[in-house]
């Protein structure tokens, strides 16, 4: 596979993967390695005692083993102020200016708040962040995020953790067609490798997922499945699929068909 550029990083894998919800820290490491992902998402939370972390070993030490680009998120933030503060804490803690900006507007389906998202994006870009906005597939919102300075957009496929795949392929196709120069990663809602293939065939630059691998019966094998799915989908996009037709057309040549008799004159 050809390498590609995400923000200022050159990557081989187009998969970005989360670090949450795995059965154990070791399974997390094995699955992330099997996925081939070079970007992993992380968060910031209160840590009241070391004992909360896997057997006394803290999450930070597991992260060091991965040697991946870290993409901290602002998960759980509901206001611009919370998100901007969390992003600044993440920048210091993880030593990166990358931030996956999550600003939740509706707790029922964890739908991003487009208005607060845009405001926080402007503020964070002014503060020097590379903002990866977790957004809906609304074209106008996405255009405004680009106007605000985003080089990357992360529209959802479906609400976080649902595994429903691409619920509105038309909206995603429209986004891809209207914003061809923007790096676009489908974030959230991916449940099966076939969903990832579908998004990659549409020309999306990458996929961000977590639950689909972490909650699979065998996370490591599912991670490998997604690794191949992204490659297959991307190659399919680069190769260019044939146009759909309404009517059947034989693929085997009709010239020289045996047992064919010209109708008697």
């Amino acid at each position: 596979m050809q390498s590609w550029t995400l923000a200022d990083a050159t990557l081989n894998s187009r998969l970005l993967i989360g670090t949450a919800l795995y059965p154990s820290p070791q399974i997390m490491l094995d699955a992330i390695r099997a996925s081939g992902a070079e970007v992993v998402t992380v968060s910031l939370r209160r840590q009241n005692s070391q004992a909360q972390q896997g057997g006394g070993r803290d999450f930070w030490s597991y992260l060091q083993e991965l040697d991946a680009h870290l993409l901290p998120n602002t998960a759980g933030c509901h206001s611009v102020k919370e998100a901007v503060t969390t992003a600044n804490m993440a920048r210091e803690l993880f030593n990166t200016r990358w931030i996956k900006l999550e600003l939740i507007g509706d707790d029922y389906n964890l739908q991003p708040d487009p208005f607060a998202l845009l405001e926080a994006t402007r503020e964070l870009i002014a503060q020097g962040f590379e903002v990866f906005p977790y957004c809906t597939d609304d074209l106008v919102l996405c255009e405004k995020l680009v106007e605000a300075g985003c080089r990357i957009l992360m529209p959802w496929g479906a609400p976080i953790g649902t595994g429903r795949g691409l619920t509105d392929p038309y909206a995603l196709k429209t986004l891809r067609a209207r914003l061809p120069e923007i790096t676009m990663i489908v974030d959230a809602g991916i449940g099966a490798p076939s969903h990832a293939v579908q998004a990659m065939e549409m020309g999306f630059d990458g996929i961000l997922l977590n639950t689909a691998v972490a909650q699979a019966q065998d996370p490591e094998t599912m991670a490998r499945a997604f690794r191949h799915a992204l490659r297959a989908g991307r190659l399919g996009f680069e190769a260019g699929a044939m146009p759909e037709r309404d009517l059947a057309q034989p693929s085997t040549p009709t010239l020289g068909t045996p047992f064919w008799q010209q109708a008697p004159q």
Partner: protein
Amino acid sequence: MKLIINGEPLEQPVANLAVLLELVEAPSHSAVAVNETFVPKTLYRETSLHEGDRIEILSPMQGG
């Protein structure tokens, strides 16, 4: 002086943020906000604390 540390009350006079972080044995990898405003490490010593201040001490955690 009453402070709120990660949502829990702490009743103790504390000179500044650096002293507080030692007192509560904050993890080495952590970032801090006071009253929802980020405080960089370089400012811990000069950040004095006041009655009712809410301090968040956050660490790296799993995320999606």
